[in-house]
């Protein structure tokens, strides 16, 4: 399995490009840190540097996943799901009566979701969470017998599993698609999704800083502006279009796909921001700093992955 990745020159180009970008970004980050002035700009620089560090880690994980092939990717994404769900459940208030439901979420539902992808059992993996788990969670809470804020608790756990396990699992599921003329090249598609999604986040951040004026929802996220979001989505779409050679898409199709990924990613980070505000996680996020932040990095990916997968499957898999 391992040599396959090495024989794929375009994949190596794509990955090499990412490493090069990251290296440049790290250098710029260091330079900016040295000539930082003022508390506000220092905070911005620190924020960016933290992101860059996280991407290096993500890159390492990705490289490992690609080298290990399909199973490796599944295991690694499963691990990310686990950490994200752990972060989410820690932050979202639950009650004593949720204990067993939570145990099942971590140790049965989530592993099962990834196993089904590994088995390429398409129908089961797409319906497991929306239909079966949707019924299982409230039932199991009801059996525990505590009805205080019942609906709220059920919804919180369902959303957690949905976002952290189900949605994210669509990313490695890209590797089970068999696109004619693109066999064994699926890793590129996964990398394409992640690059466009992450770059969209960065570019939105950059455009926000450069020309951002009109806030979208300052109560939810004080930084997100209409100008920044448009700029970010459009420039990341341009980047995605320029990467068409690594995908089974034509440049125009690639533009459409990248645009979809960017818009959905935007929705994802806005929604996760709103959840964080709701549970007052900003402070908590600082408290658990060492473990925190995984959800912040993958929020946009979680929202973009399922639709991207379905679009590719609908249009490119006969």
């Amino acid at each position, binding site marked *: 399995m391992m040599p396959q990745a090495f024989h794929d020159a375009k994949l190596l180009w794509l990955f090499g490009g990412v490493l090069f970008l990251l290296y440049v970004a790290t250098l710029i980050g260091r330079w900016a840190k040295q000539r930082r002035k003022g508390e506000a700009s220092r905070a911005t620089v620190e924020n960016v540097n933290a992101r860059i560090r996280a991407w290096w880690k993500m890159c390492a994980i990705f490289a490992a996943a690609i080298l290990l092939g399909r199973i490796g990717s599944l295991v690694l994404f499963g691990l990310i799901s*686990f950490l994200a769900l*752990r972060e989410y459940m*820690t932050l979202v208030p*639950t009650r004593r009566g949720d*204990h*067993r439901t939570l*145990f099942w979420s971590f140790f049965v539902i989530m592993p099962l979701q990834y196993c089904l992808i590994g088995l390429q059992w398409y129908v089961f993996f797409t319906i497991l969470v929306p239909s079966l788990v949707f019924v299982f969670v409230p039932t199991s809470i009801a059996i525990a017998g505590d009805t205080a804020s019942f609906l709220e608790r059920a919804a919180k756990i369902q959303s957690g599993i949905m976002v952290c396990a189900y949605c994210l699992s669509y990313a490695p599921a890209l590797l089970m698609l068999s696109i004619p003329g693109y066999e064994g090249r699926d890793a590129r598609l996964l990398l394409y999704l992640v690059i466009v999604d992450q770059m969209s986040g960065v570019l939105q951040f950059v455009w926000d800083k450069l020309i951002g004026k009109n806030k979208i929802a300052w109560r939810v996220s004080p930084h997100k502006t209409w100008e920044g979001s448009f700029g970010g989505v459009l420039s990341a779409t341009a980047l995605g279009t320029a990467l068409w050679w690594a995908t089974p898409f034509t440049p125009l199709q690639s533009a459409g796909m990248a645009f979809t990924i960017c818009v959905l990613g935007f929705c994802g980070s806005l929604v996760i921001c709103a959840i964080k505000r709701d549970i*007052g996680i900003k402070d908590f996020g600082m*408290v658990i700093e060492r473990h925190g932040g995984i959800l912040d990095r993958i929020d946009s990916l979680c929202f973009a992955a399922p639709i991207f997968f379905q679009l590719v499957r609908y249009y490119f898999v006969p």
Partner: protein
Amino acid sequence: MNGGVHPFASLLAAVARGITGVQVQWAGCEPDEKQRIYFANHTSHLDFVVLWSALPSDLRAHTRPVAAQDYWESSAVRRYVVTNVFNAVLVQRGAMAQAKTPEEARFAARALIEQMAAALGEQYSLILFPEGTRGNGEKVGEFRAGLYYLALRRPDVELVPAYLENMNRILPKGEVLPVPMLSLLTFGKPIQVEQGEEKEAFLERAREAVGSLRRIGSA
């Protein structure tokens, strides 16, 4: 054997740290060779193991938990874990409450304090949960008097408050399967019995010293 630590204890500690992802903060003191009594809130069976595992490994060999005899001697596995693996000090809880006369109660209390003082000896530190039982995590319960009398009996030993957060969500009372949420452990500033301080006042102060280390508001 690792400096007197049972290998199984190190294993359990590693597992507990993995499950709880515990983040340790020494907010009021640093890890030290000094003899100490760590006293903390109690909501889960994981409490002791996690607190113990948060200590540097050279201190672990000299740190013993204080555990309730009635609970931990009720089965062979429990007894093995607590006495052989963790070298715990097993105490009889509620002996004073069960005593029929004040005389008996005083006698039982003195025996208990002497037992813990002896367990401290010249080199050991203790981990104590002065609530005496596992709470639901909402607030720190009333402290039993043992901490006060032990502090008077051994004024040379430092009293270090600690707060364990989220343990009740990871492994609450009555459950055997843990949910791997994240947790926090904060060590506070050592306290001592002030000159002429009454039992109730000291116990309340100690309880507040533990409760004030809480970093996240109640759910």
